[in-house]
């Protein structure tokens, strides 16, 4: 008898929790569904909702960890005109695709002025499509060159003394018997690297003006000296003794672990690593004085005489065009991307703010000694191609530029360009 009651009771409890779970989807007229890409966004959202005095609250939904996973989930839901989405976190390269399909609500002129004020050039550029602002920049991101000070003498390169090139780094790391870590994994991080290399030698993945062309008329710009330089550098690193183990499958975190290893020397990576070193020190996996040995400098150059175009990343908040609470959502975005929120987010997540003024904040300067380098990098950062067909562009580049050790400056640029144009015209598969 007791058992029966118990089972029935548990079943009821389960049913009730299931029902309340379902009911939470819409949750009243002041609840905004907010798709976040980083756990730290939730803390900011909690503060905003309490400060709003009951004007709005959030139903937080977490997007997948990977950039591609986040894109796919947003794309699927937005294409299905999911009205339960109000605010979405959009990785900048994917914004054009969503905006072109009219999935995002464009910000009007006064909102645009408000969300652009004091924002650094890089993050602002990648939030705009066809001269319309579709995302309010929450953070900007750029990669730096990180190095271990103790290996510099042996390597014969000193990034702190002035800009260094990829060739110098590969040679220096080889000479010192240390690694030069980059992201060779076939995912969005490979695209980031290829784009930075091509842009750093003055090229571009898509020819200019392709933003407004139909897919089958878009022309690639990879079959160029810049494309050849990119293929050469990637190949040279992949076959050099300075390459970390498992390079063709290494993402950002693998790069960090190579850099932290005994033979770590150099690495290109996002600034979050600085906060990650702290966590590793706290956990005891890194010695307490590890950070004393770590230096940073601007992203490496391709040609010694040409300034580098550092990778550009970040996150923007957009309002879904299918949301039934768009005005309320804009009101919430105001708080979510405010200077206070960006500062909080930067400290918690380690991701750089998009507002220039934040980098002058004493607390930020103390926590991020490389604040000036990040700000300079963000201003000079070159976004990935702005294209309504970005999915095809990145897919083709990831296919053509992988694995890095098989690339050739003679054939890769031509093949990559051909693949890109064929895929866009629906002649080939990826």
């Amino acid at each position, binding site marked *: 008898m007791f058992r029966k009651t118990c089972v029935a009771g548990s079943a009821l409890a389960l049913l009730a929790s299931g029902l309340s779970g379902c009911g939470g989807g819409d949750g009243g007229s002041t609840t905004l569904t907010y798709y976040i890409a980083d756990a730290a966004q939730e803390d900011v959202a909690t503060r905003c909702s309490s400060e709003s005095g009951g004007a709005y609250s959030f139903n937080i939904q977490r997007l997948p960890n990977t950039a*591609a996973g986040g894109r*796919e989930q947003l*794309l*699927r839901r937005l*294409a299905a005109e999911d009205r339960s989405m109000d605010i979405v976190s959009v990785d900048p390269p994917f914004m054009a*695709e*969503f905006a*072109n*399909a009219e*999935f995002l609500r464009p910000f009007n002129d006064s909102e645009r002025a408000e969300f652009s004020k004091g924002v650094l050039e890089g993050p602002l550029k990648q939030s705009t499509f066809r001269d319309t602002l579709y995302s309010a920049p929450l953070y900007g991101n750029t990669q730096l060159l990180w190095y271990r000070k103790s290996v510099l003498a042996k390597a014969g390169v000193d990034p702190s003394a002035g800009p260094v090139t990829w060739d110098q780094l590969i040679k220096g790391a080889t000479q010192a018997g240390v690694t030069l870590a980059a992201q060779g*994994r*076939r*995912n969005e991080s490979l695209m980031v690297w290829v784009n930075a290399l091509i842009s750093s030698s003055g090229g571009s993945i898509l020819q200019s003006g392709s933003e407004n062309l*139909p*897919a089958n008329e878009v022309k690639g710009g990879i079959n160029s000296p810049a494309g050849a330089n990119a293929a050469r550098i990637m190949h040279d690193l992949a076959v050099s003794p300075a390459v970390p*183990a*498992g*390079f*063709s*499958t290494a993402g950002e975190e*693998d790069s960090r*672990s190579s850099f932290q290893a005994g033979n770590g020397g150099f690495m290109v990576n996002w600034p979050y690593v600085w906060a990650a070193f702290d966590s590793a020190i706290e956990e005891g996996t890194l010695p307490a004085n590890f950070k004393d040995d770590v230096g940073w400098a601007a992203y490496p150059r391709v040609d010694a005489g040409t300034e580098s175009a550092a990778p550009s990343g970040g996150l923007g908040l957009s309002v879904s065009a299918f949301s039934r609470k768009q005005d309320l959502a804009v009101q919430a975005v105001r708080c979510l991307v405010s200077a206070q929120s960006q500062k909080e987010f930067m400290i918690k997540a380690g991701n750089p703010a998009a507002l220039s003024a934040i980098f002058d904040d004493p607390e930020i300067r103390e926590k991020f000694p490389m604040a000036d380098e990040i700000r300079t990098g963000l201003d000079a950062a070159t976004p990935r191609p702005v294209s*309504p*067909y970005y*999915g*095809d562009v990145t*897919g083709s580049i990831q296919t053509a530029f*992988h*694995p890095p050790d098989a690339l050739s400056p003679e054939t890769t640029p031509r093949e990559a360009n051909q693949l890109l144009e064929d895929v866009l015209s*629906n*002649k*080939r*598969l*990826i």
Partner: protein
Amino acid sequence: MSTTTSAAPPRPPKETRAARRIRLTDRTRKERNLGWMLAGPAFIAMVAVTGYPILNAIWLSLFDFRLTDPSGREFVFLGNYLTILTDGLFWQQFGITSLITIVTVSVELVLGFALAMVMHRALYLRTALRTAILIPYGIITVVSSYAWAYAFSNTYGFVNGVFGLGEYDWFGGTWSALFTVCVAEIWKTTPFMSLLLLAGLAQIPDDYLEAAKVDGATAWQRVKRVILPNMKAAIMVALLFRTLDAFRIFDSIFIMTAGAQNTETLSFLAYRQTISRVMVGLGSAVSVILAVLVVLIAVMFVKVFKTDLSQQRGDKK
């Protein structure tokens, strides 16, 4: 299957529909109506959830249709099929899919048979043994793929440590990556194979084996001459099920290699076109081709190898 057809009642003499209707008693008619009322909703639901998507996919496969560009939708008839079938990538991935299927199913058959024999013959701890063998099959594929991906990882995996391989990157080359995928697949699905084979094994009367033993047959001879011939139907059914499953492999590859190093399979090709590129037309065409291939495999097993599916239901001894 053949038994069911032969058991069917002899065809009644020809009669008109009207005459037949008259002959139905009220009770029969009511029962028939009740049958339709009871099964009808399920039938409609089945058609809706299986028939509609299939027909819709076939219809969509005739269009050049990008989800983010609905206005650019264009009827291209068989254009997508032409693009796919003339693309080297499709044939390469067809080859990879076939290779994975052949390797994993063959190894699973041998291992599964051995495990089935162990489960069948075990005298002690029978339940514990069967449970232990079946555990991998109870694990979600995504979870087991992650487990194997971590195991083979060159930074924190145990495989390199155990075999003294240093920092060998299993996922850095096509063959080594395919090897890890096959290992994960075999580990995960061998129990299913052994379960199907165990059912076949249990159907062999002990008398046969005893008679063979009395006649002086060795253990190997008993397996070859008595067990295997009597299990043929069960083996074929197990092979059919596993082949159909293996040919659609997706999860392990998605998790372990994300398709890098030329490890993409046909399911992955469909995923990339439909989900990543949102080229719904092209993706549907890949899916239709994949479905046709799966049907062909099934037909080949049933017609060429004369696989008798009724064996599995126990209709026939």
